[in-house]
């Protein structure tokens, strides 16, 4: 049995892990996992497991370059991503404690949350977010966005709405223009690590200015973050984006349930 999606999917219409194209992986999340921090969360999207803790808003460290002029108008968000040595399939030894991937995830998260949170309420302060990736199995950035959102909600930091991330890919290389008559490629929701490695995918994070509700309007949905590193013909982008945004909506409901469920306890 060949183990790649691009060959098996057209035959079975099932992905490697048995999902259909529009199915998310099982999401399990918890908030207030670590009493020592202002806010914390645990999030597992399939086999991608992330722990996130938030400290602050607190007084910024003195002598910090970002703590000075930049912080005068609002809080500064600091994100620190740590991918554990045992997170991947092979054990990875990182030199100096961080690598390229964690650095990129950290800077993307920082810019996403810096603009998302109501930082103007906390001038001269720092909100520091620590993300530990315990197990990485695709959609790392999306899972990290969701975990951070939960932890920041737990910490009680005001934000306009939940920031939810999701990935979307195509079930083939999608390098030729899309043929509307013979459309054999399906978009895939929430890609896993093997899919991430062979297929084009993008990560999108959306937010709403109004908290979720039954009367949610499509117009209120805002894309807060969008990254794509792979090559795909431009005609597919719209499909992928639509699927990704839809995935974010599903995730928002799940996160919403987690937050409401924990507050009832």
């Amino acid at each position: 049995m060949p183990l790649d999606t691009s060959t098996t999917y057209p035959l079975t219409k099932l992905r490697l892990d048995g999902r259909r194209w529009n199915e998310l992986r099982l999401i399990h999340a918890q908030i207030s996992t670590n009493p020592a921090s202002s806010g914390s969360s645990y999030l597992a999207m399939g086999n991608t497991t992330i722990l996130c803790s938030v400290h602050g808003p607190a007084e910024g460290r003195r002598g910090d370059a970002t703590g000075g002029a930049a912080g005068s108008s609002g809080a500064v968000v600091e994100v620190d991503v740590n991918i554990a040595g045992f997170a991947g399939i092979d054990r990875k030894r990182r030199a100096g404690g961080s690598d390229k991937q964690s650095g990129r995830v950290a800077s993307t998260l920082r810019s996403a949350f810096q603009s998302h949170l109501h930082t103007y309420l906390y001038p001269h302060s720092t909100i520091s977010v620590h993300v530990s990736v315990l197990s990485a199995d695709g959609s790392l950035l999306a899972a990290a966005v969701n975990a951070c959102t939960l932890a920041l909600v737990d910490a009680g930091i005001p934000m306009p709405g939940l920031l939810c991330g999701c990935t979307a890919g195509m079930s083939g290389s999608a390098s030729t223009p899309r043929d509307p008559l013979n459309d054999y490629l399906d978009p895939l929701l929430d890609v896993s690590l093997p899919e991430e490695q062979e297929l084009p995918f993008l990560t999108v994070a959306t937010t709403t200015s109004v908290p979720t509700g039954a009367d949610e309007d499509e117009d209120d949905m805002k894309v807060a973050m969008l990254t794509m590193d792979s090559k795909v013909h431009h005609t597919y982008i719209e499909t992928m984006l639509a699927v990704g945004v839809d995935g974010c909506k599903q995730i928002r409901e799940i996160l919403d349930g987690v937050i409401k469920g924990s507050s009832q306890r």
Partner: protein
Amino acid sequence: MAAQRQASSASQTPHLSPAELSYLYTSLSLPGTPIRPDGRSPTQFRPLAAETDILPGTNGSARVGFADGTQAIVGVKAEVERTALGIQALSTAEQQDYAAAGNDDRGGGNNGGSKQGSVSGSGQGSWVQMAIEIPGFRDDDALPVFLAEMMREPLVESVSGGGEGGMVGGLKGRLVINRRWHWRLYIDVLLLSQPLSYPLPLLSLTTHLALLATKLPKLKSKGEEDPFFDDDWNAAEYLYPRVKSTKHSSIPGSISVHKVRPPVTLLVVSVAENIIFDPSREEIAVADAVLAISVTYDTDFDRLKLLSIRTIDPPSRLTQPGVPNSENVATLGSTTAAEESVIVNPSTGEEEVPGVWRPRRGGVKRATIAKMIKMVLEKGGVGEEVLDGLEGVEVG
């Protein structure tokens, strides 16, 4: 941050005033019955929550959280690696006798090794790698390096006897697949927040649990073949083998127990005449001596055995001294010198004024060390209590 790195081994010294330090020291040094700030008995550990097998991507994992919110996660990963051969293994058959004979004097471990024939000798300590990550520290800072070495040392050292359910040649021997291949074990320790106290007990307990939960895939190849393994994870074997419980009926509900268990490292401090286990940050700040004692269960004699001891620099040496009233400019004249008689501390031999903190100096008496070791090792002592407690944690 810089100051923190400087205090390499002592971890962070809490900012306590000399008066607070003196109060702590006095209450902890009460003869016989020390009063600990959190009301524990001298041998009592802090309550903790533990779970194992939390990460699907590892061979074994565990999470332990203290009530104060400090959490540690340990993931164990095993990889197959080719063995670098020494002179003896490379040499011809006639030298094999010599090699076997030579290995014989290395205790029970290797006798078992030569019995199995194809499995050669014992493993190497370097096959076990340990990395500790502590937020706020770089991974080559002194504290993580020292902690990792401290915990790796007893692990590779624990050679235990063979026999039914035993581990031939200890952990090192267990990692040998055949003459040319072996497992390499990566133990990654992750501390999730800045440590509030010296993190050794937390890390050691978590590592212990993670190793207990560690499974290696079942070997399907035989002898000197290149190894291949059973795909079925359910068939995998525990790194530390388990046997059906016979003697240890004391633990309710457990069907299988480990005959061989990974070592645990206990943090023990002495304050005056008292020995205190699992010190909190405040307690360690006034300790006269801090020892890390690693023990494991000795299957041959059904008792605990000592694997390693390390002294840890007590942070009390770096604290600020208090000023007795007789020397204090602010209160000069209000007290006479006679009121504050200088007494000699019986345990340290230093002259001090009661109630005035003086940083500790000097070392620790041999008798004190012996007493600390005895309390850990003795039958029904703290070491057994901890190992039994860990055995109670549902594993797998």
